[in-house]
């Protein structure tokens, strides 16, 4: 299992629970997750905190099937079957990786509008790790 310690996970809660990103004060690009130096202009560490809309579009995706899931997601695959993991281009620009839930794996497509929602990601050391997954943006 890709071990993420609780303190390390805790530091990323603003991103995992409510999509807090940073806007570069020099070039105006939005970084998500936050960076030490803006990944777009590589010239500024001066940021303003912004809450992202959670809306985006599937940039590309892969379907994870039996045997392909990392150990922390193996049980999820066994219970629910094949699940999609997508790179999503957020409305504010950044591309992020995440699972797509509440969707028939066969119907997911590039360009599909999605939005973030709080879900149980996995559990380790008896601690439930909550975070965002993407769900289809229609029907809310």
């Amino acid at each position, binding site marked *: 299992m890709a071990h993420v310690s609780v303190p390390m996970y805790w530091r990323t*809660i603003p991103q995992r*629970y*409510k999509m807090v990103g940073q806007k570069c004060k020099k070039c105006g690009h939005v970084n998500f997750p936050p960076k030490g130096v803006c990944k777009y202009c590589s010239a500024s560490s001066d940021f303003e905190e912004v*809450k992202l809309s959670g809306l985006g579009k599937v940039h590309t995706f892969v379907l994870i099937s039996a045997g392909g899931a990392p150990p922390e997601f193996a049980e*999820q695959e*066994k*219970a*629910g079957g094949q699940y999609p993991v997508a790179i999503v281009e957020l409305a504010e620009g950044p591309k992020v990786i995440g*699972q797509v*839930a*509440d969707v028939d794996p066969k119907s997911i497509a590039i360009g599909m509008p999605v939005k973030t*929602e*709080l*879900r*149980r*990601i996995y559990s380790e050391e008896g601690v*439930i790790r*909550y975070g965002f*997954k993407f769900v289809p943006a229609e*029907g*809310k």
Partner: protein
Amino acid sequence: MPIGISGYAAYIPKFRIKKEEYAKAWGSFAAAGVAEKSVMGFDEDVLTSAAKVAKRGLESVPLAPEKVSRFALASTSAPYVEKLLSGTVLVSVGIPGTAFCSDHTSSTRAGTEAMIAALEHMMASSSGRAVVVAADAPSASMWDTIEHPMGAGAASFVLSNEDLIAEVEAYACFASEYLGERFKPKDEETLHDLNVKKYEEGSLLANTIKSGNAILKMLNRKPEDYQHVVIQQPDARVPSTVAARMGITDAQLASGLVVKSVGDLGAASTLVGLAAVLDAAKVGDKILVISYGSGAASDALSLKVMSDRKSPFKVQAELERKEYIDYVKYLKIKGAIV
């Protein structure tokens, strides 16, 4: 100044299992009047459902989460026995950490308990804004027939002193001591019920009728003054049993009777029922809500509809968005195969 509901929303998870699936697996289905019930996905729990329905409730007003000064969360099915539950939801929704938050657990009456706790905050600080969420997915051993009715769902309400959809006119409570019905002993994984039917009906009637009659007396009303009545729905028979004793008709129960398509929603039962009633109610309609939790207690709330404004997140739409699963998939999602 009147205090009441200025926004509301429902969330019903999309998976459904039909009673026929239980009949195939076990030979019978022990949930009177329940045709199918809702089931949470593998990656959902009462906290993720609460976050979703709280956001919807705020959006229905609309109200910015930063304005919320009180957050009350109710569930009998929390993922932790000890650890703040409302914090997960509060942070995800964006409600300030300075808002007073409270967790209401350990009774199916917790939904109305949370509502009353938030109302008391509003009475003390009328410029405040409160969010009440009941999210539940009760569970029991698959070997026990008390598991059969257990569904999943959530509702949220924004309490305010302006732009009211419905004013809360009054509330009344009754608590007493009864043993042996729907309880979870410390250190035990599953819910127990000694299933002494007639005795349990005695507790149900004693508590609900006392809180119900107390509110009627308080407002000098008769049961027929209410167009809509929501009574705790562990199955579809219980509300009718209570109603018959109080002189309430099945027609008055109709608009809020959600149990037949979602199952027993535990602490969210009466509040999802209330959301369904608000979807249908007209200005001037009066609504009576009576909850029940084993052990035992009952709360009654009386509301008056002030506006035709409806939530964009209707219970009916939630009921129509569904995907059927079979019993084996149900066991897998519930983590019942170990």
